[in-house]
């Protein structure tokens, strides 16, 4: 069995976002080889019914977005599409600029974002991790579920992703040089 086939089996079994480090551990191989195998798997899944969703160190298996209408037909629970203005703005900031500190989100939006962040986390759309530059602070980032909801295999598939990331980074570098990690 090839490494990419093994990874496919593991992701199928686990059915949740899986850390690439865990994959390397279970498979007793290097991170580098896992990365290579993942891109092999990605190629092999082209035109198939399944797809990989990949962000930073996490990866999961899901149905191809071309099949979404079909799956929607047999899905029992109705998907909640309601996001509201605050939710849309906050998700846009996190998707195009994440991982990002709450202070920066507040600064960009001009309002306190703690409650909208909390509700996005409860919905499993946003996740937070310890800020490596500030032990008391967190960085907010998109979850693989958010990417899946948007039919994105990876963040780079977002429209205008590359141009925007540069713009936002340039701005925050200029404006927040003093208080940003």
């Amino acid at each position, binding site marked *: 069995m090839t490494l990419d086939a093994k990874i496919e089996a593991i992701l199928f079994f686990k059915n949740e976002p899986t850390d690439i480090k865990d994959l390397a551990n279970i498979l007793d191989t290097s991170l580098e080889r896992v990365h290579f195998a993942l891109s092999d798997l990605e190629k092999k899944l082209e035109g198939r019914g399944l797809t990989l969703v990949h962000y930073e160190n996490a990866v999961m298996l899901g149905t191809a977005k071309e099949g979404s209408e079909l799956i*929607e037909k047999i899905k029992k629970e109705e*998907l909640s*599409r309601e996001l509201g203005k605050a939710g849309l703005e906050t998700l846009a900031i996190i998707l195009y600029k994440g991982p990002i500190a709450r202070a920066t989100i507040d600064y960009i939006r001009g309002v306190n974002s703690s409650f909208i962040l909390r509700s996005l986390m409860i919905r499993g759309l946003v996740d937070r991790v310890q800020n490596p530059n500030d032990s008391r602070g967190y960085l907010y980032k998109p979850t693989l579920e958010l990417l899946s909801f948007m039919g994105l295999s990876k963040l780079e598939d977002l429209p205008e992703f590359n141009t925007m990331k540069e713009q936002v980074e340039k701005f925050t570098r200029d404006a927040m040089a003093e208080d940003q990690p």
Partner: protein
Amino acid sequence: MDDFAIKVGEFEGPLDLLLGLIERKKLHISEVSLSQVTDDYIAYLKQFENLPTGQAGTSLSNMANFILVASTLILIKSYSLISSLAVTEEEKEDMEDLAKRLKLYHRIKELSGHIKELFGQSTIFAKENSNHFESVFAPSGEITRKNILGAIRSVVDNLPKKETVPEAIIKKVISLEEVIDDLTKRIQQSFKMRFSDYTKSSNHREDRVNIIVSFLGMLELIKQGIIEAKQEYIFADIDMESKNIALPRY
């Protein structure tokens, strides 16, 4: 969660409001257009500042956000009217930043259109969870009464708390009208005074927001033709004189 909503009227926050006002006038985002919507911004804010908190979704800390942006707007407008106006480096940065922030915020709003378009439209689905799975009792050494108590304590400690902004302080700072009334009275009484005397003798705390709010009051009075202001040289105090003592109108 409605009591936590951040809204003054239909707007999410000060930047949202500013953007709405600029778009309504079909202007481009710049310091010039910001000075053109300052009055609208203040007028809009005034409708809400006297509402009890909780009504129309206003919250005190959020009002403070609105007022802070108002103070920068006033600076921008004053600067455009009184070119000799002295501003500190920090204030200059705030003024320049506001237009930049607004442009970025505008961009984010455009991008949030993509989110709206894509969200839930062609979802990548995970496997449905099987309802029949075998479970094996597999505890771990961490599960002790002590650790479980520690865990529930940490849960309780991290429950979100309601805002604890001291209401009295913010109410004092943000009462725009009060400052204007006060200023009018003082102008009538002393006929001629200096801006720094006003902020010093005022019973408000002499913090930055307050000075700026007072300044706004002064500008309003100039606009209404009630007083005249003079500044001898840059960084100097501003002299205020009443033009029409009998008719302070608002």
